[in-house]
């Protein structure tokens, strides 16, 4: 990932936004400004600044912390990144069939592994305690609906 690729990504967002603007139905109600104008203006503004950013990135004038020795990532960045995101995916996949605690524990273990904790009994115990504690605080004390702590899917 580089600033130029970020610019290309933003350009893709602008293209999608522009396409979506064309899909907004016009209103039957007579008014000076309908539902299309402001989204169109914002999409156009984003496109303009994206172009400016892209030109600036192409000239090498944009920042990327990866190129700063003090802030650059240590080896293994992709793995750490994937571990954290993987934890999130596991939670999304399992929270409905299994309840809150087990998916949150697994997610927590993924996050902890992204910060160099070894997956194992210690990690599972600590993350399980964290997940259960937050379930109790939110669900039992604060009355916020998190669903069941544990659910047997079969």
């Amino acid at each position, binding site marked *: *990932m580089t*600033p130029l690729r*970020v610019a290309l990504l*933003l350009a893709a*967002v602008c293209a999608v*936004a522009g396409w*979506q603007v064309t899909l*907004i139905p016009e*209103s039957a*109600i007579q*008014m*000076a*400004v309908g*539902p299309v104008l402001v989204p169109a203006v*914002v*999409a156009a*503004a*984003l496109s303009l600044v*994206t172009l*400016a*950013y892209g030109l*600036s990135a192409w000239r090498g004038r*944009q*920042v*990327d*912390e*990866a190129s700063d020795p003090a802030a*650059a*990532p*240590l080896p*293994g*960045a992709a793995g*750490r*990144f994937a*571990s*954290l*995101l993987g934890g*999130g995916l596991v*939670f*999304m996949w399992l*929270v*409905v069939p299994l309840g809150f605690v087990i998916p949150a524990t697994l997610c*927590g273990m993924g*996050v*902890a*592994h*992204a*910060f*160099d*904790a070894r997956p194992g009994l210690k990690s599972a115990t*600590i*993350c399980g305690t*964290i997940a259960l504690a937050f*379930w109790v605080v*939110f669900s039992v004390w604060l*009355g*916020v*609906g*998190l*669903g069941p702590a544990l659910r047997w899917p079969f």
Partner: protein
Amino acid sequence: MGTFEALMGGFATALQPATLMWGFIGCFLGTLVGVLPGIGPALTIALLLPLTYHVPATSMFVMFAGIYYGAAYGGSTTSILLNTPGESAAVVTALEGNKMARRGRAGPALATAAIGSFVAGTIGTLALTFVAPWVVEAALAFGPAEYFSLMVLSLVAVSAVLGDSVLRGVVSLSLGLLLGLVGIDLQTGQPRFTFGQAEMLDGIEITVAVVGLFAVGEALYLAWQGRESRGAEVMKVSGSLRLSRSDWARSWKAWLRGAFYGFPIGAMPAGGAELPTLLSYYTEKKLTRHPEEFGHGAIEGVAGPEAANNAAAAGVLMPLLTLGIPTSATAAIMLSAFEGYGIQTGPQLFSQQGGLVWTLIASLYVGNVILLVLNLPLIGLWVRLLKIPPPWLYAGIIVVSMAGVFGASNSVFDIGLLFVFGLLGYTMRRFGFPAAPLIVGMILAPMAEQSMRQALIISQGEWSTFVTRPISGTLLAISLLLLVLPVWWRRRRGD
């Protein structure tokens, strides 16, 4: 009812045991999140928004105010002991505070930060008490055109003044505006940017965006860097927590100057707390009789910025309560909380919900006292928190983030959106895009559009109304200046 009588009425409610309890919880939580890096008051308030279904509005806002002020207090502890600001506004405190700690003067550094925060927080709250009614009076003359222009000024100021790049600020702002328009158009019922998904019809929850950007995004960024788990040195709390006569003499003027920087700048659109802390630091550096100490642990370099930080926190509440305009991410979340209760902020808030507003303001005074009492005696607890190993700290942050978002909607889609915003937050952090314009843009986009369309209905389609109305025209002119001046100034300095 006069201001003083209204304030006394507010105290009568704020000092009731139940309200005091919520204030204490807010102050405790706020200090906690201020101490811990990776969590901020915006994120904390966002996570607690589901409570709005269960807790009365007054108690909730007293707690939120406690969190808000508490975070300003707590951020200094991490800055001084860990050289890692717990809050962005505490960055400047770390410059001198950590140096003081390394010289064995952590105690006086913490003490001057806490006392200065109390003094300036009280001054800021006094200013809020007596200035807010004037602003409300002036704001009653505002129509939709003026509100639209004021929001344009806020949006431009947030993107152009903060951060080190106007261009990246405007990119962030434009993206925020686009995201804020997702959902159904309120006036015509037409879906916009929903991709045919039912979950998108109500728009993107601001909670999901804030939690994603600040919690998940920060965790992703730090995991990517891989340096966090190496650990940082936590300084011991050395030296007495009492200030010597010399420390008092060097601190009190810095507190007052910091307060007078913090409140007006915090009250301005995009003022925030970072700018006044920087101004305070450079002022103290110029005025000190001990210039040789700056860079090596000068107490004025802690006293002034911490005071500015806390006074700015009070200042930020002013446009939120009197005009309904959020000028920071935290204020934007608090606006969401007001909307959750069906309360409209702005000039009418003081007349329609006077009890709630004055209780909130009174609780700020009480909160300042609670925080002064909480911070120094509990310093041992805060230091222990700093020693939580990063894997478990960030596991806890992500789990609580998911709990907050899932608890609000029970939607796996929102969890997915949370991580999408997390990826966005990581990208923004890595490539230097400021997050505040995106959040403020998301909140203000629909509001600005509504104001604009109402103004055009009133003017019967005449666009010149935004320029010909004096207040509106002035605000738009200032916006234009703010957009052009930084670029011109940088070019001139480059010459």
